[in-house]
């Protein structure tokens, strides 16, 4: 049933989705009711002993962990979801401290965020898992915290994590209230039918207004305000209540130790010494060191070398039981052997494979080239290493006449791309040219010959140079996204006109309280991919938040635009644009080229053209005089230095006809603008 619900949600036209809000409301209520029942049952059985919390749970002797003591009903698998900076990782730190997983020190800041980029940007990129031991009303529980990325760009990671969970903590900043990603994350959890515990964080802040946030939560998510837990993760206030709620409100995993062993691979890492380290959720039975297990996807058999819990560091236990979450090392040498979404089972007890995951679809593409071709090999190995741990990035070799050999990489979204780029630079010290992002267009072919050639009627165009001609196409399609914008209502007018400029169609508008508005727009992805977010932030003085989810494809009037230098097309500057945007983007490109191509001895016409029709033009005037006035004995050294530099530069020029174009000019035109 849950599956069909999700599916229906996705297929329902957007307008109806909005109208159907009411229907879902009923469903949520139902769900909450079940919940309440559960909680009552627990409460009756186990009286709350809040005073004992401080003593709790530290399993000091690591080797003494006997996981068989934790049947499924004493396990809770949960994750934390939040908008950026709402305090997800800080709460995770407190939970780890309180359960003794890590020592309580001042230094514990975002312990689960291991990557430099995560700490710098205050975001989580890669889901981390930590198992916590928690004593509640005399019983010891195993709480598996899966720290998920906050941004929807990483929703692939989020949904993988969610599949191993039964409940989520939905964190909302008591000051900022619900933000765009709060909404997006809520729906991910909601669609997966998880128990949702709203947590209002940062109540210690001066401007905290938890009551307002509670009513927002009630209004937008239909969760009764009484269910919200007000905390300060920073100070530790009420965090105990969160642990309690995890036990009380989140159902245990439905898994029986008596079933045959069956586990879902929900994440994997690569270790140079041991090979693949897979994160698994055990859905049934048990597994131990030395067992021979089979990958359902490949049919290959492996021997379990090592397994255990993540606390958050690896902690070998020798066994894992139904309902538990942990890591496993089984001699998989290639990261491709640990397919995320794969099912593992014992060699002698085959089981039906779990549904797994749909592979993430790259929605934003960008070219990556080494700054210097001599760095190609180094950059290649850096990209390979990074993609080992981020299988959602698609990699295609590409080459540009101007920028040399490189790759065309596909990302789930913009932030994903930025983070990848930053990791490349920070972790692998690679300097790269990243071209302006493009989106995958589609064309529906009308020519029978072409259809036969491609093997399908619909083709995806990633490289603009391969854009099929109008004459062989019945229609072009562009990817759409449903954008959610939350902002104070004083900015509504400006935001609406920005969206209108971006060819967006408003789908919904809702006051989530008396000052804040939630707007939903259907955007062409291409329109939000480059600078939309920056503009939105600046026109709202930073108060607006934005997020989007993919919303399929729509027919669009797309055309191929050429850039000509003295009449010769420049292959690497071909762009696919919407007809309405052709003039403005053609003009912008011509202007950028004019500014970055040095004057030459002849005049250069820089033109943007559609077919044979020129739609924009800039002229680079010829030099009439270019010679140093004074050049005597004392001037030679300086003069030679300058000329040698020009001569070196000349060797690297790309020749379009007789026009010399420096690499910098291409970089200036193709590169994403620096913020």
């Amino acid at each position, binding site marked *: 049933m849950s599956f069909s619900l999700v599916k229906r949600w996705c297929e329902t036209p957007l307008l109806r989705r909005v109208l159907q809000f009411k229907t879902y409301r009923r469903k949520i209520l139902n769900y909450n009711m079940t919940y309440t029942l559960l909680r009552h049952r627990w409460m009756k059985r186990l009286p709350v002993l809040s005073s004992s919390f401080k003593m709790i749970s530290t399993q000091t002797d690591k080797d003494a962990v006997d996981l068989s003591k934790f049947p499924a009903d004493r396990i809770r698998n949960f994750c934390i979801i939040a908008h950026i900076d709402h305090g997800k990782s800080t709460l995770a730190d407190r939970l780890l401290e309180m359960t003794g997983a890590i020592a309580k020190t001042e230094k514990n800041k975002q312990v689960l965020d291991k990557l430099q980029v995560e700490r710098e940007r205050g975001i989580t990129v890669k889901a981390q898992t930590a198992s916590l031991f928690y004593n509640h009303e005399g019983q010891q529980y195993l709480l598996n915290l899966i720290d998920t990325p906050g941004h929807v760009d990483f929703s692939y990671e989020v949904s993988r994590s969610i599949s191993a969970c039964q409940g989520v903590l939905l964190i909302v900043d008591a000051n900022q209230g619900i933000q765009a990603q709060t909404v997006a994350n809520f729906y991910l959890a909601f669609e997966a039918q998880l128990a949702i515990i709203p947590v209002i964080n940062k109540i210690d802040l001066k401007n905290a207004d938890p009551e307002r946030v509670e009513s927002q939560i009630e209004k937008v998510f239909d969760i009764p305000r009484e269910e919200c837990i007000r905390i300060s993760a920073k100070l530790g206030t009420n965090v105990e209540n969160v642990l309690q709620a995890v036990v009380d409100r989140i159902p245990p995993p439905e898994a029986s130790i008596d079933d045959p062993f069956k586990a879902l691979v929900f994440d994997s890492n690569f270790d140079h010494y041991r090979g693949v380290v897979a994160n698994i959720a055990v859905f049934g039975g048990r597994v131990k060191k030395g067992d021979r297990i089979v990958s359902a996807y490949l049919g290959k058999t492996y021997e379990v070398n090592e397994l255990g819990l993540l606390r958050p560091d690896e902690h070998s236990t020798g066994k894992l039981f139904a309902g538990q979450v942990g890591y496993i090392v089984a001699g998989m040498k290639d990261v491709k052997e640990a397919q995320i979404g794969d099912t593992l089972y014992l060699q002698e007890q085959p089981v039906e494979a779990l549904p797994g995951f749909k592979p993430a679809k790259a929605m934003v593409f960008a070219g990556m080239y080494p700054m210097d071709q001599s760095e190609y090999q180094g950059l290649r190995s850096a990209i390979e290493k990074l993609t080992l741990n981020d299988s959602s990035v698609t990699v295609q070799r590409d080459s540009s006449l101007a920028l040399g050999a490189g790759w065309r990489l596909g990302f789930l979204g913009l932030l994903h791309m930025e983070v990848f780029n930053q990791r490349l630079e920070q972790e692998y010290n690679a300097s790269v040219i990243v071209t302006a992002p493009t989106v995958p267009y589609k064309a529906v072919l009308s020519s029978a010959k072409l259809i036969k050639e491609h093997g399908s009627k619909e083709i995806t165009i990633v490289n603009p140079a391969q854009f099929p001609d109008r004459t062989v196409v019945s229609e072009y399609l562009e990817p759409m996204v449903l954008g959610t914008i939350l902002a104070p209502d004083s900015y509504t007018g400006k935001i609406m006109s920005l969206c209108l400029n971006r060819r967006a169609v408003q789908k919904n508008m809702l006051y989530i309280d008396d000052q804040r508005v939630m707007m939903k727009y259907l955007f062409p992805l291409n329109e939000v991919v480059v600078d939309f977010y920056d503009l939105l932030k600046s026109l709202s003085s930073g108060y607006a938040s934005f997020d989007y989810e993919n919303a399929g494809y729509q027919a669009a009037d797309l055309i191929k635009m050429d850039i000509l230098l003295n009449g010769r097309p420049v292959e690497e500057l071909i762009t696919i644009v919407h007809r309405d945007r052709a003039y403005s983007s053609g003009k912008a490109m011509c202007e950028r080229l004019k500014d970055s191509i040095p004057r030459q*001895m002849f005049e250069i016409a820089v033109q943007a053209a559609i077919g044979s029709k020129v739609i924009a033009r800039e002229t680079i005037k010829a030099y*009439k*005089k270019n010679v140093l006035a004074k050049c005597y*004995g*004392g001037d*030679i050294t300086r003069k*030679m230095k300058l*000329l040698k530099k020009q001569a070196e*530069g*000349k060797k690297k020029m790309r020749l379009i006809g007789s026009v010399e174009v420096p690499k910098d000019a291409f970089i200036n035109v193709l590169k994403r603008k620096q913020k």
Partner: protein
Amino acid sequence: MMSLRAARRALSPGVRRFSDTSGGEIVEDVSERTGCAQLTTQASLYVHWPYCLRRCSYCNFNKYISRDNNDHMMTECLQKETETLLQLSQVSCVTSVFFGGGTPSLAHPSTVAAVLETVSGQASLSEKAEVTLEVNPTPVGMSKLEDFCRAGVNRFSIGVQSLQDDDLKILGRDHSSRQALQTIEEARRLCPGRVSVDVMFGRPKQSVESWENELSKLLRVCDDHMSLYQLTLERGTQLFKQVQGGEVTVPAEDVTAEMYQCARRTLHQHGFLQYEVSNFAKHKAVSHHNMSYWKGRQYIGVGPGAHGRFVLPGEGGVAREARTQTLEPDVWMREVQQRGHGTRRRIQLNHLELLEEVLVMGMRMTEGINHKHWELFSPQLSLREVFGRSTDVQELLQSGRLILDDRGLRCSWDGLALLDSMLPALLVELERQISQRLQRDHHTDGQTKKTSNPR
């Protein structure tokens, strides 16, 4: 007393040592005729006087506004460094001397006399050798011209810059147009046919028309030599800041290009032949000193911040060195006192680097680089061998901007104004050919010794 010593120098040529052959006077093509040997036995000498009375708004040159009078020490140090460097270079003949600055006309004429005397003590300096002094056309400067002549100066280069008094103020000059005209007159009286006038165009608010008027005025008063420089905005100057800040506007590139072409035409009509990008002469009154830079000959630079290009056989050197003296006058003087010279930087030029300089400097002359001139520096690869095959060069030849014929390689009239756009292509080709040649030599005959490359 000083003038007495100066007079002695001027009157007693016996003090000077004459070289056996050419006597030091620069005759056209002398080194081409007499060959490669003279490349290292001759040199011109540049002497830098670093002080100015005030800072011109456009100038970023190495100059200092002196507070205390240490002219005497400066003179001694210039002499000392001249002596040291001439010894190291072992040149037998100094072909010309140029006193530049700064404002060398602020120096006492005895300084000039003293330096020239030092030169004569170390090498032969012909009586006819060109000795130029840069002059600021102020009344004080003018009053000393006669003494400078007695000290041995036989050519004046006068920094007129403009005949518009308003412009002179903007440029920060300390003279008026009237003073300039008087100075020219006096200089012509003393050294007829050997006076040059420096003028600047592309000045703030200048129009093509006003420039034409100014030129015709100048043509009525000038001697046989003119240097026309386009004002270049140098970073760090007051004028640069003013232009950046929008206080002052300078003519657009198209306008200055027209000013240049118009000046070339006008001067030509008046019998002035252009012999270099910025230099024009009547009656063959070219600056021999500057010609020797453009012809790639040796020169020795003396004084704070001066540059030189010469071989140092005295130190066992065989390749030409690029030498730069210490910039700051006080530091430079201390160094000269301590070790005889204030050379701060020495870079050995390899064969390619030498040819690059020969090319870049040579192409500035309207006569360009003739085959003999090139062969002197590159006996193994002729001009045609280096440039004849390149498609880039072919395009330049076809466009009519560059000429490669039986005389040699040179710019056409139109091409000269665009020289800096052509040089990169020529340099790329030169480097390619030289490195290919080196590889070929390595491959074919490692044992056969090539004739040693000129320095």
